[in-house]
């Protein structure tokens, strides 16, 4: 982490109420360019509400969002996307029936003018897709290979590469590894590391402590709508993170009975 950088996003005392339910009760978080900020928490801890607030799906009930130092009010996800905040969802990211290159440029198709008519510039799209994919370490048979033939990890990687290509400054990854095998998880984590090196801020949501420890620079744990603090890499052990997520001592007892395998 470079202290000279100003944070790209500051979330200050964010509260979000759904009717009488308090989903977030004053959560603060800073994200710096080029860091991988892991957001951990058990199911129902408020992780998704928090990132949806960050990506413009929800508006906070109370609190302030600063983007590059200026207060921001995202009316919808489109605002957040155009500001440079891209979200890669675990699902709904890719269309399996379509080719990688068509998926890559979906909604942002490059256009080539022929006389008065606009055509999809397939040559450009294919070239860029192949380049970006090989940068990420994925070898395609060709740009017209369908996304359905890729593994789950490769699909996540395509989605990440797409967000980066279209100028994301902050990349929110919503549980990208939860449905993947060991090898594919490693691939996605390697992609995250590459993206971070390019100076992009990564917000990595997971409930797997080991995945977080592998790539994270800082770790913020959410429990019941509140932060239990942000820790630097090296200041905290996986066991401590696990305990924070579970919200206290009961897991220690449980872990003991399971022989330390959780």
């Amino acid at each position, binding site marked *: 982490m470079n202290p000279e950088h100003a944070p790209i996003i500051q979330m200050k005392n964010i509260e979000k109420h759904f009717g009488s339910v308090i989903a977030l009760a004053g959560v603060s978080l800073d994200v710096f360019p080029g860091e991988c900020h892991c957001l951990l928490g058990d199911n129902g801890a408020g992780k998704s509400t928090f990132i949806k607030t960050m990506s413009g799906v929800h508006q906070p009930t109370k609190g302030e969002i600063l983007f590059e130092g200026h207060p921001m009010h995202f009316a919808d996800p489109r605002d957040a*996307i155009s500001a440079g905040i891209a979200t890669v969802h675990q699902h709904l990211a890719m269309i399996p029936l379509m080719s990688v290159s068509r998926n890559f440029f979906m909604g942002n198709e490059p256009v080539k003018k022929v006389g008065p008519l606009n055509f999809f510039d*397939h040559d450009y799209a294919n070239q860029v897709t192949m380049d970006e994919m090989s940068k990420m370490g994925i070898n395609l048979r060709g740009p017209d290979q369908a996304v359905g033939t890729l593994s789950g990890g490769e699909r996540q990687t395509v989605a990440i590469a797409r967000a980066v290509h279209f100028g994301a400054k902050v990349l929110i990854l919503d549980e990208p590894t939860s449905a993947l095998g060991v090898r594919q998880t490693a691939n996605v*984590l390697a992609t995250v590391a590459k993206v971070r090196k390019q100076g992009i801020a990564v917000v990595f949501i997971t409930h797997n402590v080991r995945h977080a420890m592998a790539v994270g620079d800082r770790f913020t744990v959410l429990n019941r709508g509140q932060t239990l603090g942000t820790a630097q890499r090296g200041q905290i052990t996986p066991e401590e993170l696990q305990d924070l997520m579970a919200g206290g001592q009961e897991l220690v007892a449980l872990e003991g009975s399971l022989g330390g395998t959780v």
Partner: protein
Amino acid sequence: MSNAPIPSVVDERIKTRSRFREAMIRPELGGIVGTIAVFTFFLLFAFDSGMFNSQGIMNWSIVSAQFMIIAVGACLLMIAGEFDLSVGSMIGFAGMLIAIFSVTMGWPVWMAILVTFAICIAIGGLNGFIVVRTGLPSFIVTLAFLFILRGFAIFLPQQIERKTIIGGIKDVAEGDWLAAVFGGKILGGMFNWLGDAGLIATFERGTRKGQPVVDGIPMLIIWAIILVILGHVLLTKTRFGNWIFAAGGDAEAARNSGVPVNKVKVSMFMFTAFCACVFATCQVMEFGSAGSDRGLLKEFEAIIAVVIGGALLTGGYGSVLGAALGALIFGVVQQGLFFAGVESSLFRVFLGVILLFAVILNTYIRRIITGER
């Protein structure tokens, strides 16, 4: 965790594929194989039957062209993830409107045609609007319009003219510029020359003695070719085409990526209605009359042609060229079985067999391409 670029290792599980196989495996493959099979078959069994003389070729070409016109619309709509079951009724309804406007109300034919197109496209838009607004399956919404439009196609002429067929359009369309665009024929000179040269048969008696039996290419066929090319270019070469694939492949994912899914779907409904209207106008201008029962079951014929052509019923995958080949197969088989001397009531049996084989083959091809399991 190394940050060095991962060396490009070949995944040992991906079988290397020959270039021939690469070139062969495409959405249209089913249609291409089917077309070759069907023509081989009829060349073997029906060569001398008149199927491949000028009249015979014109006959199955026209029937196939009719299927193509509605298949292009149905294909793009299906790829965008929706169905239109009101196509057949729309054909009857559009023809009846043209007849009522031009014959009963005495409008100039070009105006009758333009107004009819406007009404039909508006109804297509309404179909689409209801589908995207309510989220109901298009199957149900357009089924409702199947009945509504057919009902009007019977009710209107009955109320106005007390009959269900309105004729006399040929007389009022005489010399009309727009009517000729739909009902005319081109290249008459070439066919006259072919007739004079003895290359194609000529009439043996009657007022047209000595003239060739085929006196030009009907505009119907020209429209089919134009629509197929237009649809193919739109789907594969434009950004809108990418949106069509995306809207049908996964509407939610497409919306997340900024594709205006609703706009795409509504405009595809309008395009389907436009195709149905082209079909109806060509038919009315050729035959000179509009009937309440025109276009019965044509929606299913369009869908069958599209499915033979390799499109996926649930959307997101397909090819306009494939659909055109599907229409060609359908038309050639329908007309060809008769030339081959097959009992006509067996037609449906063959249609069913072909449909089944086409779908099995297409599914096999699609799985190779998209990695579905």
